[in-house]
Every structure is written in C-alpha cells, then in structure tokens.
C-alpha cells in the first residue's frame, strides 16, 4: 500500500526532516510510527498525503508513484486517504456535522447518504450529541475526535493518524486505538504516529521508530516488547 525507498526530505533552512527512509506497508497492515518530538513523523505522513514532495527517493502509494504524479492529481490521492491531523484542522465557521461531511461533499455524494454516514461516524467517536455545535465550543479532546470522524467517514482504504490521542484521556485513547483495530480488521491499512508508548506496546503491532529523520528501528509485532522510551 505504501512504499518508501531511500526517501529524504529537506526543508528550506537546511532542516533534514527525513533522511534515507525506506519501508513498506502491505495492504491491510496496521503500523505505529514513533520517535521523539521533531523526529519527522508528521513530515512522513505529509509526504504520503502529497502535501509535500520528497527531496530524494521514491514514494509509492496505492500503486501510484507520487514523484511522477502531477500536482493536479493530488486531490484524487488525498480523497482515498483519511488523515487525522495533529492540530485537528477543523473549519471554525462550520458546524461539527458540516466539518465531518466535507469529504463526502467533495465526493459529491447524495445528501441522505451523507447524513447517514456522518451520523454513523460521529456515533463511533461518541459525539453524536454535538453534531450541531461549532468547533470552538468543543473541548480539545472533542475536537480531536471530530477530526477522527472526518477521517473515517469516507471509508478510505488508507488511514493516517498524527498523534490522535494527544488530547484524549487514557480511556478514550484506548477506545480510539480499538476503533483503529476494528477498521484494520475490515481491511483498512492504518498508520498511526504516536508518543504513547504504553498504549502502542499494549496494541502489539508493528512499530517504526524514527530518530532525527532516520528510520532507526522497525519492530515486528511479535517483538514489540523491546520498545523502550
């Protein structure tokens, strides 16, 4: 589903956010991505979403070589990926319902279908009662969960999550990871960037470890116990 081959990303100002990163995700896999603050996790996810272009190396997503994809096709790629952003990225002048329905609006779905799907997604994150609220009226954790609902509402084959539990209490964090596993069981490929080592360990899945832009470890599911802070 996702293949990185010797990928480097250098931002202006001589920041080497990623250096020579190679890995492969099979369709239907569930993988965690961890590393210290500034290690390059968000950068890696942004590359998959075609929000940035790699400086060097080759990225293949969904059998498409991103390096050779013209930018006008980027929206089509993004539509097949659900992304939970580290800072939620909600539209403050639209209600929760409208925010979650965005991907479906973009797809041009019929309104009754949109309604059904949005409410199902909000139900999954426990926010059905807040559908008419504005994002600014929500607590930090609630905003984060709205972001989750928006990412999963389009039933994308690939789900990316950037620190999805940063504002959630332990209980909700676990619920969310369980939700990810459910989606994964339905065939969705899931890649989650997270700092919550305890929870990652408890999930028992493959873990990629970044450090200073380099992929320093790729721990298979069976060996997750050796993950140390």
């Amino acid at each position, binding site marked *: 589903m996702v293949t990185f081959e010797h990928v480097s990303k250098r931002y202006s100002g001589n920041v080497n956010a990623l250096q020579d990163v190679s890995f492969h995700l099979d369709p239907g896999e569930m993988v965690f991505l961890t590393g210290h603050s500034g290690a390059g996790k968000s950068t890696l996810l942004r590359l998959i979403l075609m929000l940035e*272009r790699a400086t060097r190396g080759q990225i293949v997503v969904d059998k498409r070589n991103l390096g050779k994809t013209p930018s006008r096709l980027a929206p089509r790629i993004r539509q097949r990926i659900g992304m939970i952003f580290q800072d939620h990225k909600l539209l403050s002048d639209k209600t929760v319902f409208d925010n979650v329905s965005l991907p479906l609006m973009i797809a041009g779905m019929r309104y009754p279908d949109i309604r059904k799907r949005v409410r199902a997604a909000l139900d999954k994150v426990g926010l059905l009662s807040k559908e008419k609220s504005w994002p600014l009226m929500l607590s930090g954790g609630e905003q984060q969960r709205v972001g989750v609902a928006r990412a999963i509402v389009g039933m994308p084959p690939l789900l990316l999550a950037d620190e999805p539990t940063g504002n959630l209490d332990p209980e909700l964090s676990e619920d969310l990871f369980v939700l990810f596993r459910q989606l994964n069981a339905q065939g969705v490929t899931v890649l989650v960037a997270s700092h919550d080592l305890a929870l990652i360990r408890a999930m028992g899945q493959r873990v990629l470890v970044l450090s200073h832009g380099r992929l320093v470890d790729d721990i298979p599911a069976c060996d997750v116990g050796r993950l140390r802070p």
Partner: protein
Amino acid sequence: MSLRQIRRKIRAWGRRQLYSFFSSLGTLLSHRLGTLMTILVLGIAMVLPLGLYVSVKNLRAIDLEREEWGTITVFLQLGAGEEKVKTFAGRIGQERNADVVTVSPEQGMEEFSAVSGFGQAIDMFEENPLPWVLQVTPRQVENEKFEETVADLGAWLEGQDGVDLVQVDYKWLKRLAGLLELGDAFVTVLTVMFSLAVVVVIANTIRLDVASRSDEISVLNMVGAGNSFIRQPFLYSGFWYGLLGAFLALLLLNLSMFYLQRPLTQLLDAYGNTFEVMGLGGRGSLLVLLAGGVLGFLGAWLSVRRYLRQFRLEDPPRRS
C-alpha cells in the same frame, strides 16, 4: 468509462455546484454588515461610469437643438419678390435637408426697431431698406460632422443666384467643438479610472475575503478538495457581489436622476424646449446587472487563482 459511471460523475458534479452555491450565499448572509459595506463600495464605484454615460447621452440629446450654434443667416439681394424667396426657401429645405425660416423686410424692420429701441427711426424710411433674410439650420446631422456640414451648406448658399451675403456664426461653432473635445478627454480619463476602480475593488474584496479564509482553504486542500471545489464558492461570491453592486448602482443612478430632474428641467426650459431626462432603459439596466455579475466573477477568479498558487506543489519535471 461506462455510461452509468459518466452519469454518476455528472450528478456528483452537480451536487458539488449546489453545495458551493449555497455555501457562498451562506457566507454572504452570515457576514451581513460586511457584505453590505462591500456592496456599497462596489455600487458607488459602478454608479460613476454609469452616471457619466447617462450624462453624456443626455448632453448629446441637448446638443441636437443646435439652432443655437449652427444657424446660417442669408441676406438676399434687395428687391427680391416674395414668391421667388419662398420658392428658394423651399428648394433649400428639400435639396439641402435644412430648416428654413424666412424673415421679410417688414419683420426685419420690426425686430430692428424693437431691439434697438428707437421706433422713431422707422418713420424716416420712405421705403423699407432691409432685404429678405433666410435663417437656415441643417437637419439630422451627426454631431461629429456638424461643423463640416454647416461650412458646406454656407458655401453652397453663397453660390446661389440672388444671394447677397452669407453669415455663419463660427465663433459658436468653435466653442462647441472645443466643448466636445473637452468632454471627450474627460470621458477618456474618467472611463479609464473607473474601469480600473471597479476591477480593483472587486479583486481586492475577494482577495481579502480569501485571505481571511485561508485556513479554510488550506483545510479543504488537505482533505482532498480539488482546485475547482475550493474556487467555486469564491467565484459565486464574486458574482453575487458584482450583481448586487450593479443593482445598487442602478438604484443610486435613478435616485440621482430623480433628484436632478427639477433643476435640469428648469435649465432646459430656459433653452426654450421641454426635455425628458433619459435613463438607461430596461435593456441597458439588464446589461449593467449582467456586466456587474461577470466582472465580479472575473475579479474573484483572478484573486483566487493567484491565491491558490501557494498551495500548489511543484509538478514533477517532464521527461521527453
């Protein structure tokens, strides 16, 4: 692609359009005061070229009563018979397409004594010493060619039998020409300025609109919206702005005309004829509304296009 797929795509496209349409309306309505202010600015910017246009149109119409400027006075030789004079006058009217007023020697003397105020002088003439006089005004001439036409007619009249003297009031003609040239220069300057103003106002409004919603645009971009989906609501907004601005401009124009009607009528009464102030008319108004909408659309398009560039990734280099 199968027919069914195509049909589905078209339906999806239509739904997206509807969404953009309502979303743009919603935005305008949710910022009522701001929308109103923008429309006010646009309306004022648009009413100026319109007002100028209508003024020029009306001035052109006033010019048409050009007896004032373009009358040629023809003194016939002394002793011409009435019959012959009338025939000549008729011939001028037909052949040269001009209005002719004949003044007999008696009328001339009356006028003379009235104007000069020394009635007693008349008694001193045993015989009326004045000739027949014709006042000739060309009909249906375009303003631009007017001077030429009058000069032509004057030359022709001079060549006729029985004509003693032809007098063309060139002083007034020169003034008219100067005035028209001045008016044209004004129209050029102001038209350039106002066209600029309308374009700049709309582009600037949409630019600030876009800037104040840059977060929204960046989020839409991230969740997979194509450029057209992002652009659409702004284009509709621009259209609405332009349309409503044009509407306001028409309103202001008609109000101004109403307010100016009285002094204008008074002025034109002084010129000795009644005159209806001409507005834009129904078709003109429709055209203005349309132009407003289109201009708004274009302004929005320019602004948004420029702005969207910053979200564009560089394209991969083309290989041959």
